[in-house]
Each structure stands twice: as structure tokens, then as C-alpha cells.
């Protein structure tokens, strides 16, 4: 499992464009909001929590359709599935690598996006925490979606349709946490709910993705 994770990181470092594209997408979407709603800080700050979370989730979706499809196309998936590795372990390694390659850079870019959306600086810490939890959940749900849509025609279109509805609670709680922090309220309950969601997805998503890979 660690070997698969390290190979993913090495491949991502050799092709940094994909991870970079997701980060730039995240920043550019956040930069579009001031143009759309006007530069008034009040209006922007009202939108900021939801916009930040939504943009991050959409950005994290970008590289997901290649997660297993690239391996399936060049025959690597057959070898990985016959390497004596449990399919759920393979899915877990893939999810962890997706988060390290896509989720982590998004967190690093979060202050830039937060500034573009005029989010009060008091809320930045909670925003990064909430985005960290929600990107972890999305990596897990996305791995499941990628495994399920593998081999489907137009799988790249199907994947967001499958994953984004599942991500609705993530958007609600993550945006809620950021909004609470920006308004000086307690963000802890929202973060705990996100943590609970993550605790559920952590074992279930790799198991389900593994089952989907085995059937595929």
C-alpha cells in the first residue's frame, strides 16, 4: 500500500501540471467572485464560506476521472489487482495519494483564495481546518466514484454527478464552520460533524471502491 502511495507521489512529481491545474482552478474560481458580485467586502464576505468550499471541492474533482482510468488503460490496474494486494488497500492508497497531490496543495492555496473573497482573517484558521477535513472526505468519496465509473462511457461526466450529491453535507458543515468563525460564533460543532463524516467515509469508501474494482 505504501509502495502504491509512493509511486503515485513520484508520478505526480514528474507530471506536476495536473496538481497545479487543480490549484489554479481553485484560485481562479475564487477570483471570479469579486467580478461577479462586485468588490464590496461585505457582499463578498457573506458569500466567502460557501464559495470557498464549493470551489475547493470542484477543483479536487478535476483529477479524479484519471485516478483509475489511467491505470486501466495502460494495463497497470490488472497487475495491481493481481499483486496480492487487497483491492480496498489499493483504493485507500489511491485516495491518500489523491489527497496528498490535490487536497494538500489546495490547503496551501486557501489563504490566497480566502483573501480574494475578503474572508475575515480571524476565520482563516478554521477555513483551512474545514477545507482540510472536506478535501479528505472528497478524496475518499471521489475514489469510490472513480472506481464505480471505471469503464463506463463518459465516466468523466458521470463521476461528478455521482460524487457531488454525496458531498452536500460536507458543503453544509464546512461552510457552516467558516461562517461561524467569521461571525465570531463557535465553529467546533461543525468541525466535529465533518470529523464524524470523515470517520464514516474512512473505512467505508475504500471497502466499497475495492468491491467496485474487483467487479470491474
Amino acid at each position, binding site marked *: 500500500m505504501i*509502495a502504491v502511495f509512493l509511486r503515485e507521489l*513520484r*508520478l505526480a512529481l514528474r507530471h506536476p501540471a495536473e496538481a497545479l491545474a487543480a490549484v489554479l482552478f481553485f484560485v481562479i474560481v475564487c477570483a471570479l467572485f469579486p467580478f461577479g458580485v462586485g468588490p464590496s467586502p461585505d457582499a463578498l464576505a457573506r458569500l466567502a464560506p460557501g464559495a470557498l468550499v464549493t470551489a475547493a471541492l470542484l477543483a479536487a474533482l478535476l483529477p479524479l476521472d484519471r485516478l483509475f482510468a489511467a491505470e486501466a488503460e*495502460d494495463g*497497470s490496474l*490488472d497487475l495491481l489487482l*493481481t*499483486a*496480492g494486494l487487497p483491492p480496498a488497500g489499493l483504493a485507500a492508497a489511491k485516495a491518500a495519494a489523491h489527497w496528498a497531490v490535490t487536497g494538500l496543495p489546495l490547503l496551501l492555496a486557501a489563504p490566497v483564495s480566502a483573501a480574494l473573497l475578503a474572508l475575515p482573517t480571524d476565520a482563516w484558521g478554521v477555513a483551512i481546518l474545514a477545507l482540510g477535513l472536506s478535501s479528505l472526505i472528497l478524496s475518499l468519496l471521489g475514489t469510490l466514484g472513480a472506481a464505480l465509473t471505471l469503464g463506463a462511457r463518459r465516466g468523466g461526466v458521470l463521476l461528478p454527478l455521482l460524487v457531488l450529491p454525496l458531498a452536500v453535507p460536507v458543503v453544509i458543515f464546512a461552510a457552516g464552520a467558516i461562517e461561524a468563525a467569521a461571525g465570531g460564533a463557535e465553529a467546533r460543532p461543525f468541525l466535529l460533524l465533518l470529523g464524524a463524516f470523515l470517520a464514516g467515509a474512512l473505512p467505508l469508501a475504500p471497502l466499497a471502491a475495492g468491491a467496485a474494482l474487483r467487479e470491474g
Partner: protein
Amino acid sequence: MAVLPGPGAGLFSQGILEAVLATEGLAIRRGGRVVFSGLSLRARPGEALLLLGPNGAGKSTLLRALAGLLRPAAGRVLWEGEDVADDSAAHGTRTRYLGHQDAIKPALTPREDLAFWARLRGGEPEAALAALGLSALAGLPCRSLSAGQRRRLALARLALGDAPLWLLDEPTLGLDTASVARLGALLAAHRARGGIVLAATHLPLPLPDAREVAL
């Protein structure tokens, strides 16, 4: 995994060593069409089976089913009398599958590629590179390899560790004569250790006294 002593044809003909790989009434359905059904074959340690048949006869499909990548519509694949579907991780450990595709990442070098598979399955990457004559190319990114060289890298993964069951789909596709000879040495050593080879091919393979199975 049990590594048996040298094959000794006499032992086999007397039936002292039992078949370790067997299929019982195997049937595979692909896209609603039955590719083959009622297939029963057995292979003893050290034995080589050559799968022959026209395009579309189901040679690749059979190899994928034996590797555990396809679920049979009926019948079972048995290893030492036990259904391989019961413990797919153990079956993976004992199997080396070589598909049509070479499963090579263009950005990695052959040495990195083999080091990755060696971490998953054991074995010595440098020895595997040398076995297929790839040592001189080991540091180049795989995108600069020719089709034959890529095939050799895929074959070099067979030389990692000592899995007893090799499933080879058109192993010599694109290989030059020197590489075919290297593959021959690899196959002979594998069979001398008591390993089983099943190969699907349209080209002559360096597999002396292989049993032919028509599909």
C-alpha cells in the same frame, strides 16, 4: 509457496505429482455472449500449456479468468484443490500475469518500475533487468523505449520473486530473436523450479514439449 524440486518427466508420466492448477467446467460470459463453456484443464508443476485458437476464441479471456481478474459464469478455478476465488490475495501472490498491454508509466525509468513491483511482490530488480538485457536502459525514462524494449520490461517483472504460476498473453509480441532466447532461458528456469506456464500465442514460443490446448 511450495517450490518443488526439478521436474523430471518420468515422475509426471507416472502421475506421482498431482496437478496443482485445474479448472472444472469453466464457462465465461462476456457482454452476454458465452466465450467458452465446460472447459476443464489441468497443469502439473513444471508443465507448460500453449493455448491455441483463432482470434476471439477466448485465449486472453481464459488467462484473465485464471488470474482471477474475471469471475467465471460457471465452474471453478482450483489451485491445489482449493477454489482460487476463496482467497484472491493468496492467488495473486502465486500468479504472474502478463497482459497485452505492458503497464508502463512513461515518466518512470525501468529501474523505478521494477523497484515498485519488487516492493509489492519481492525479488531483485537488478537481476530482473539483467535477465532481459535491460541493464543499459535502466536509467532512461520509459517513454524513450521502443515497443520491443517495453515488452522486455513487462517480461522482466516475471523474473521478480518466484511465483509458481505464469500466465502469458502473447509474450513474444515485438521481441527480437535475442530477447526470445532470453525469455526461453527464463521460462526454462521457471519450469525447472516446478513452475507452471500458460501462454496464449500465435507465434512460436521457446517452450519445449509444451502441451497444446485448442480453444
